[in-house]
């Protein structure tokens, strides 16, 4: 990094901790960036002329006479159309060997949208995955996380969603993902030939953990550029937000802050909300949609990270392995998209809400039948049929490898209804059944299966 005339250089550090350095300096702005022997750092505390800097890559090997240069600005990102198809690190520097980006320099973590200027989200995002499109429909401007255990294939599902969603830009913010997962994303995006609409900001497990604090803001700043200035629909993928929150707790701990629940900083809710609330439908047509991953430990959603996330986001998607079919499915019971009401039956076929509810209710009946079976009770004919239905419903609609159009999802559900049930059992409004139902040969089907 070249030094220029206005930069001030200091060489006397008075205190070093694992993540911070403190020194005397004048005229320093809050949240200003600095370099310490070339390492990037940010001002986190000013007391008189005593400045505390958070060193992103850690303070290992920093001497008290290290060269500290204040850069006079908050963390920045250069934005332009050239971002498309590129990979960056947490500081927004290219890591794919390509040239520097030429464009406008903006500070990351900018201001919030005035709530009265927001538009109500109303455009559906199709992913082809029926567990999402049919049961938990996503809408532009929504923010929703996957709640998943670390062993579940959430990154694969995210990559799939990214490629299928009809977004103008897809921005990946990878925090603490393994190098293998980084290469996976890179590969998938490259093979899909969709690289020019994908931008990635990546901090892998090989990078220092505190660096990842910059990643979501980098990704969202790039997203705002395309959504506001180019009126594009931008999909932002953030994985894994649990590791982001862990980094927050590391920093707050080093700053001697009093931890609240689960050793998380007291400001966790505000910190997460500041990121997730960047999801917005702009009046001029652009939008930012956020799909995130929050890994759970042993499925515990009462932990501070998923708990606070649940209060902020508009629903959540749960992955579960269905042992009956040996595939991962989107759990229809625990998953929820709060904004689906804005589009289902309105932007989709009118039978959508009813088909969705009927199928889930029958799936729940199957779960009850299963419990009965496990407890050694006899099953009724209806129970038997729900079990068969559940298996096929799981396989043809809930599994994450499904990739069909929304109308086809509903048609598939109707076929299954017909195959295993009669009209009364399905209990959908008569006029809807008449229009879309496929009940023809009730008797034969029930007996032949």
């Amino acid at each position, binding site marked *: 990094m070249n030094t220029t005339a206005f930069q001030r250089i200091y060489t006397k550090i008075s205190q070093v901790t694992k993540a911070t350095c403190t020194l005397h300096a004048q005229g320093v*702005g809050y949240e200003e960036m600095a370099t310490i022997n070339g390492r990037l750092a940010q001002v986190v505390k000013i007391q008189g002329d005593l400045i505390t800097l958070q060193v992103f890559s850690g303070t290992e090997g920093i001497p008290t006479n290290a060269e500290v240069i204040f850069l006079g600005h908050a963390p920045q990102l250069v934005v332009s159309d050239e971002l498309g198809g590129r990979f960056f690190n947490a500081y927004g520097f290219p890591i794919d060997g390509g040239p520097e980006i030429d464009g406008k320099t903006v500070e990351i973590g900018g*201001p919030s*949208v*005035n*709530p009265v200027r927001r538009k109500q989200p109303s455009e559906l995002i199709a992913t082809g995955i029926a567990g999402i499109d049919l049961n938990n429909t996503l809408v532009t401007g929504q923010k929703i996380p996957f709640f998943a255990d670390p062993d579940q294939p959430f990154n694969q599902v995210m990559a799939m969603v990214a490629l299928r969603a009809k977004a103008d830009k897809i921005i990946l913010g990878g925090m603490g993902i393994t190098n293998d997962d980084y290469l996976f994303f890179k590969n998938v995006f490259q093979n899909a030939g969709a690289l020019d609409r994908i931008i990635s900001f990546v901090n892998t497990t090989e990078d220092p953990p505190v660096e990842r604090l910059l990643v979501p803001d980098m990704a969202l700043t790039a997203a705002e550029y395309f959504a506001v200035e180019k009126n594009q629909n931008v999909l932002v993928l953030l994985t894994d937000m649990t590791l982001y929150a862990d980094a927050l707790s590391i920093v707050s701990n080093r700053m001697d802050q009093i931890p*609240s629940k689960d050793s998380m900083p007291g400001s966790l809710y*505000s910190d997460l909300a500041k990121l997730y*609330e960047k999801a917005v439908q702009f009046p001029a047509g652009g939008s930012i949609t956020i799909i995130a991953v929050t890994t759970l430990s042993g499925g515990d959603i009462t932990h501070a990270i998923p708990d606070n996330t649940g209060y902020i986001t508009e629903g959540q998607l749960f992955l579960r392995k269905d042992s009956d079919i040996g595939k991962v499915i989107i759990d229809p019971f625990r998953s929820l998209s709060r904004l689906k009401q804005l589009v289902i039956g309105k932007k989709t076929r009118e039978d959508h809400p009813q088909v969705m509810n009927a199928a889930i209710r029958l799936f729940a009946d199957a779960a009850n039948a299963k419990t009965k079976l496990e407890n050694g009770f006899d099953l009724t004919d209806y129970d038997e049929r729900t079990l068969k239905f559940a298996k096929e419903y799981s396989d043809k609609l809930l599994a994450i490898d499904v990739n069909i159009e929304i109308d086809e999802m509903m048609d598939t559900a109707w076929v299954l209804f017909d195959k295993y049930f009669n009209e009364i059992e399905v209990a959908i409004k008569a006029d809807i059944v008449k229009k879309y139902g496929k009940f023809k040969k009730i008797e034969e089907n029930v007996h032949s299966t």
Partner: protein
Amino acid sequence: MSTKGKVAGIISNLVIVEVDGPVMQNEICYINLNNVDLMAEVIKIKGTQAYVQVFESTRSLKTGTEVKFTGSMLEATLGPGLLSKNFDGLQHDLDKMDGVFLKKGDYAEPLDFKSAWKFTPLVQPDEEVVAGSWLGEVTENWISHKIMVPFKFVGKFKVKSVVPAGTYKITDNIAILLDTDNKELPVTMIQKWPVKIPIKAYTEKPRPFRLLETGVRVIDSFNPMVEGGTGFIPGPFGTGKTVLQHALSKQAEADLIIVAACGERANEVVEIFTEFPELDDPRTGRKLIERTTIVANTSNMPVAAREASVYTAMTIAEYYRSMGLKILLLADSTSRWAQALREMSNRMEELPGPDAFPMDLPAIISNFYARAGYVFLPNGKTGSVTFIGTVSPAGGNLKEPVTESTKKAARCFYALSQNRADSKRYPAIDAIDSYSKYLEYEEFQNYIKENISDDWVDNIIKAKNIVIRGREAYEQINILGDDGVPIDYHQKFWKSEIIDFVLMQQDAFDKIDSSTPIERQQYMLKKVIDICHKEFSFESFDKVNPFYKQIINYFKQMNYSEFKSEKFTNFEKELENFISSNKN
């Protein structure tokens, strides 16, 4: 001369200012950052250092920056034109701000100072007045907005003159008052009041006793709210807190609704912005937005202003109460407000209480709830502020500090149950775990006897008992198996299910079912209880379930039909016939 200062330290939005003169706790000051004034509030004073919380991001702020103190606390500006507005937590008009993004230091005035109103005087010269006395009125939307003697005026005053009826700007003097020293004090339509101090321009604050109809059966018929009462709704995420609050704001029998969206999702506020201008207010035939004021400080807006937002909303509510109106104040969610307190307490390095919340959290919460109430005004009229807050308990655990502190302060408790939400029994309020202390008030019981019926409170208690007995029976059935218990147990269970399905559950999205007037609630409650007190006989336990399911079905059809319409009475007849088919 006002006090000035210089920035001496910065930790996130906590700024330490070295001052050159006297400062006051909670005084407002402005930090001049590159010619933009950032608003801040003094929250601690130590020698010549004032600790201020900044209502904005402090990015790029430097030590040595100039700070100007205003000499006053955070004040709300009160006057005609507050209705239908969308304010931020500091009462800046969000609609007047330019651009899609909020800009630092962009403070839009809450009122339109150029606006003119048709004023009618309500006093004569020489009349004696006190703070809160009505000097005149203007019509705002559909309400009569009273122009009052400013609340800051202490003691007795005499009216020297008042302007004749006519159109005036809100900044015009509309009256001249004389204090006891014969000093002239001009009064305009605008006044200011510090938000953290309760407005006490009333003569008496009795125990509240008048029922506040909400149209939500599980509230009105089981744990009723009163005018001037307090209540809270805790619930894990996804249990329908916000849907319930929206239902209350749409249906409650109040003159005005003030919604404090405190640290919650922006898209939920957008829903109010989008829907309320379209929805009709059944009382006035006007649009809902005309009786609604929104104070929005969503979760991504500066955290210090989030704390202020609930106070701003309460002050506006108290202002309208002094005009003799019924106000319903809703705050979603008070947990976010408590978290804002925690963040500041933490930055000031105060010793923490439970879960790192400040030690005085219970006191702060109960002081706030105490501002609600039913009051007698100096002129003998009455007004009320009813306050219902939601609480978002961390991890759904009701033993956490915010829920516990609120439980001590609020008189009604509406427990949202995860189990009910999971089985789609909405609204997911558990009527048995919930309570309304007002049911025990003698004043309330008398009011109900006079205005609704003699047996209403009794019926509520009966219904609750049936539900409790049903639950006990259900547990026994689960342990001993369907055929391991007497048939009577199944009946007990299903009778409680009738109450659950017919009275407690309510379809918030159905035009008719979503709001039930009290007369209809009373009718249905009586009907349901009558049936629950009947004895039926069955050959075996598996005959019980279909029989009661059928009863529930008839009742539900009644719920979906216009009250006492032909459809309604037909279903009612079918129900009667069906029941007499089993009676022994």
